[in-house]
């Protein structure tokens, strides 16, 4: 799927925004493998281009949240005491708000560009990784190899970056992979409500929105983007499961 997204221009039989008035709402056929939508656009092409948007939103949003999580989690776990208490209370406060509504509110104030959506999803989902990193660091900082590094004169930054984080990255990677699936779903949900990626740029979520008007007569416009979301999420879950097993 990721390969298809990268190779989108090569694979897509048509331009994603190309309107063909002669073939509106065509059922899947040899000319249009997955049919066309209400404006005569090729569903397969839009699906492939949509993968670019949906996957990159997912991955970049998770990149932002994991980065924030690592920074806050490290500070919290390493320094403990009042720093820890403050950051963890912030996490608790953030977790009290249902993320989806927080994002809806934020999107209402800002433009709903793809870029903003990535940032907003990232900013509202760093709490999980932060807690995870904190727990890992608290366990690791008591280990003797960390003590040995300190005895050799290593500073805090070096100890965190060289000794603690590399040993904490396994669970973090599993978490991030699962989170990508969550972010894709979130983006689809937002786009479905019309607050995410704006047409005519295709994303799997807004394809569903556009399709729902013609659901009764053209099943293929709904089923394929829906199926793509389903497959992507299952895929990321399997990858996470694989990493977890690999790490024992």
């Amino acid at each position, binding site marked *: 799927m990721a390969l298809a997204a990268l190779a989108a221009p090569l694979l897509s039989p048509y331009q994603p925004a190309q309107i063909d008035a002669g073939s509106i709402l065509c059922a899947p056929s040899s000319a249009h493998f997955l049919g066309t939508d209400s404006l005569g656009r090729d569903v397969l092409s839009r699906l492939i281009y949509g993968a670019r948007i949906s996957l990159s939103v997912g991955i970049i949003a998770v990149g932002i949240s994991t980065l924030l999580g690592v920074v806050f989690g490290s500070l919290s776990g390493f320094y403990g005491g009042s720093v820890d208490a403050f950051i963890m209370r912030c996490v608790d406060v953030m977790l009290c708000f249902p993320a989806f509504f927080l994002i809806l509110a934020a999107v209402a104030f800002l433009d709903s560009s793809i870029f903003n959506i990535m940032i907003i999803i990232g900013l509202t989902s760093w709490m999980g990784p932060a807690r995870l990193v904190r727990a890992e660091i608290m366990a690791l900082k008591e280990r003797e190899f960390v003590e*040995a590094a300190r005895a050799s004169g290593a500073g805090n930054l070096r100890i965190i970056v060289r000794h603690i984080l590399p040993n904490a990255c396994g669970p973090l990677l599993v978490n991030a992979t699962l989170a990508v699936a969550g972010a894709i779903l979130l983006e689809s949900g937002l786009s479905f409500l019309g607050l995410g990626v704006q047409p005519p740029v295709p994303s799997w979520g807004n394809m569903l929105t556009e399709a729902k008007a013609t659901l009764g007569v053209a099943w293929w416009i709904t089923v394929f983007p829906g199926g793509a979301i389903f497959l992507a999420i299952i895929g990321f879950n399997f990858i996470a499961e694989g990493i977890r097993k690999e790490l024992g």
Partner: protein
Amino acid sequence: MLSVRNVNKDFTLSGGVLGIRSGIVAALRGVSFDVRKGETFALIGESGSGKTTLARIIARLTPPTSGEVIFDKIGVDSFRKDVQIVFQNPYASLNPRMRAGEIIAEPLLINRLVKKTSLREKVVSLLRLVEMPPETAERLPSQFSGGQRQRICIARALATSPKFLILDEPLSSLDLTIQARMLDMLMALKERLGMTYLFITHNLCLVKRVAGRVAVMKDGRVVEQGETARVFSAPEHPYTKGLIAVASGRT
């Protein structure tokens, strides 16, 4: 060279919903002794007697609650270079994600002791010092046995050419044949590099073999200290007498 003066260490136990103090455990109570330059000073005592806590305080990994640890001729700036520690458990004291060479090189890089170009050479010479072949620098800790890991730990501690080495039960997790070889190696290194050892152990035979003087700890106190020969031939404190009786009965 080292003077430990009236060191106390309390651990606060916190618990309950609000983390209210629920008790204080005194790990060390008024510990004092001196270590002379060039000698091997042994610290013996059973598990939980505060030996490791004391080692960590001397290595400045944790502060004492009260009292002082004074090093002669070792300044604040060079402390991390001149005082090193080897821990008991070689399985926990090497970062599992770093290669042996990187582990040994780290103190050199932190203290800026060698140029990048001669780093490799220096790591190899440290490996030779602990009788490990140069190619082991590329291996991960998981590919070594316990004894080999402890050799890597010793090489790391020696990297900064320390004057004072704290050995916190360095042999107790190794099997007997390796223990004897490692002990010989450690004592040879001490002579060759002119170091002073603080040797923490619960193995009395080992103390008799290597230590000039000894301090006996029990429940956070030093109950007896003096020349090793004197302490073993004419122990004064009942705890020391018991310890020696048990040890001689066993061997």
